[in-house]
């Protein structure tokens, strides 16, 4: 075990996988000489040369599109989109080309590619550099969507994503890059589609993703002082979604709060809530509550950005509402 930051864990996953499989190449803007704008690909260029670590022009459509073509022709591209907000420029290559190829072609194609991107607010990067867009990707059959919340998960999930034969969208919340944790030095995998119970509890299930997992854990800790036992579930993979782990937790706690940083309307939480309502309605003792961002672009000003991002108070309030706690604020 080693102590690593989230960014280092991702870096390590790249390195180990590239050493293992010469068909893996990395491409994207500033991934080589610069080592990635958040340092995730640092050192890879030196170790693997510019054949395998390719700095590209600013050309997202071609970065994604060439990865699709290369994957169809036998390589395993791992591309960096920098900010997930830039997907708009390249979306066709992802959702019309990558996601559908296997199905349209009668099952023959194999598309082993990973598109990494950072997401999330919290650094004042404003409306076009702060979004969480996981629901967009979840809505496309053929894509897998991964969203880790710890350095350990980041490494294991990235390795699994690279080894997966499908196009995987790998979303990294930018506030997590500096987060440290214990991470095995060797390669290991965490199966895609497997949620993780980050904290066990009895009274309420809190399903959270990415940075919201950490907020929810902190809330759970605080609420334990008020006699509320919250179970925090991190799906880790949003598509495929580990429905069973979530359902099992809800069947135990009878209450569900969903926390994510996307806007609430038609966000990933809507899918989770609907799934639970469909499959575990009888177990619920209270309406499901989603804690998420308001239906606005991400504002720049610190006061507005703080209002935008779900915070501990809002999670606490939701939990207290579903648990019927009299101390509701």
């Amino acid at each position: 075990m080693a102590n690593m930051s989230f960014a280092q864990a991702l870096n390590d996953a790249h390195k180990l996988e590239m050493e293992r499989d010469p068909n893996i190449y990395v491409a994207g803007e500033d991934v080589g000489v610069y080592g990635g704008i958040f340092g995730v690909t640092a050192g890879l260029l030196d170790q693997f040369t510019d054949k395998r670590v390719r700095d590209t022009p600013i050309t997202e459509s071609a970065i994604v599109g060439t990865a699709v073509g290369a994957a169809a022709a036998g390589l395993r591209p791992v591309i960096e989109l920098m900010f997930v907000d830039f997907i708009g420029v390249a979306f066709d290559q992802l959702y019309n080309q990558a996601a559908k190829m296997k199905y349209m072609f009668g099952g023959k194609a194999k598309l082993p590619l990973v598109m990494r991107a950072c997401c999330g607010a919290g650094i004042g990067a404003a409306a076009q550099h702060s979004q969480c867009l996981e629901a967009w990707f979840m809505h496309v059959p053929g894509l897998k969507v991964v969203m880790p919340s710890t350095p350990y998960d980041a490494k294991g999930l990235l390795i699994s994503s690279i080894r997966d034969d499908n196009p995987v969208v790998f979303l990294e919340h930018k506030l997590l890059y500096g987060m440290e944790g214990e991470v095995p030095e060797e390669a290991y995998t965490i199966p895609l589609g497997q949620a993780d119970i980050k904290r066990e509890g009895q009274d309420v299930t809190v399903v959270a993703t990415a940075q919201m997992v950490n907020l929810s854990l902190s809330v759970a800790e605080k609420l334990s002082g008020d006699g509320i036992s919250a179970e925090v579930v991190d799906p880790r993979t949003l598509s495929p979604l580990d429905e069973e782990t979530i359902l099992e937790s809800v069947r135990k706690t009878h209450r569900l709060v969903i926390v994510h940083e996307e806007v609430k309307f038609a966000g990933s939480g809507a899918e989770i809530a609907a799934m639970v309502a469909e499959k575990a309605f009888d177990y619920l003792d209270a309406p499901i509550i989603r804690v998420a961002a308001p239906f606005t672009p991400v504002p720049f000003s610190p006061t507005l950005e703080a209002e935008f991002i779900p915070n501990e108070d809002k999670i606490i309030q939701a939990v207290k509402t579903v648990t019927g706690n009299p101390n509701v604020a």
Partner: protein
Amino acid sequence: MSLTNEQMIGMYANMKKIRMFEEQVAELFAAGKIPGFVHLYVGEEAVATGVCANLREDDYITSTHRGHGHLISKGGDIKLMMAELLGKKTGYCKGKGGSMHIADLDLGILGANGIVGGGPPLASGAALASQYQGKDLVTVCFFGDGAANQGTTHEAMNLATCWKLPVVFVNENNMYGISSCTLNSMCVADIADRAAAYDMPGVVVDGNDVVAVYEAASEALRQAREGEGPSLIECKTYRHKGHFEGDPCVYRNEEELQEWKAKDPVLRFEKKLLDMQVLAREKIDEIKDSIEKDLAKAVSFAEESPFPDPSEIIEDVYTP
């Protein structure tokens, strides 16, 4: 098309204003007063200045993430800019946009842009509106060498010539898109060469020479305004600062930076105006003092202004 002394002094003052504004922003950023990213225009002042000196108030521009210079040159108010950079309610965008999204639609400024290559289609669109409405307005699209490789840029140029739109594409070739040098990101040495592919004139000018930029823009804009179609002006320039404040600049060397600093567009024009006796030392000091005063006012206005109230977050998403 001779420049009058007054115009020359105006262009000098504008460049100086951009330079001093950016230096002030760098200071505020270092002091932690500006959230997010700031991309400074230091070293490229001659481009926006020389181009916008040819524009009318109701002409349009589209800008980029490195937009402060474009805004100032199109007549933007530095008080409102500064307040926006600090995320204040009194800023251009009520604190909602920040450096990368400053806009002033009343001045035809269709916004800085956080998406590289986001601006060119907007520019062709604004030009379409002018043509459609029979107005003799022009649109200038500022875009970087990096943006020159985005599909959107090419699509916008193609449509612009297909429809003969009154738009001028002004490329600010500062040799880098973050860390990627044009030498590695394109196989033409001059972005102007690409104009031929869209059947529009494409020219290269010294982007650190405000008069050269002015002359080229003047002719290109005249043609656009008179319905003769779009053109592409490539301005060779350099950013003195990092891509954003805090950039370690591992991708370029000190020698290159010094070479370009020796071609500093502001100092160069200042020296020329002095040599040619268009401008006297005292006048330069006067200009500087007056900018300094305005800047100080802008900073205190920004600092004293309130942050937006959290309740304002849901305002302005839709037009009622």
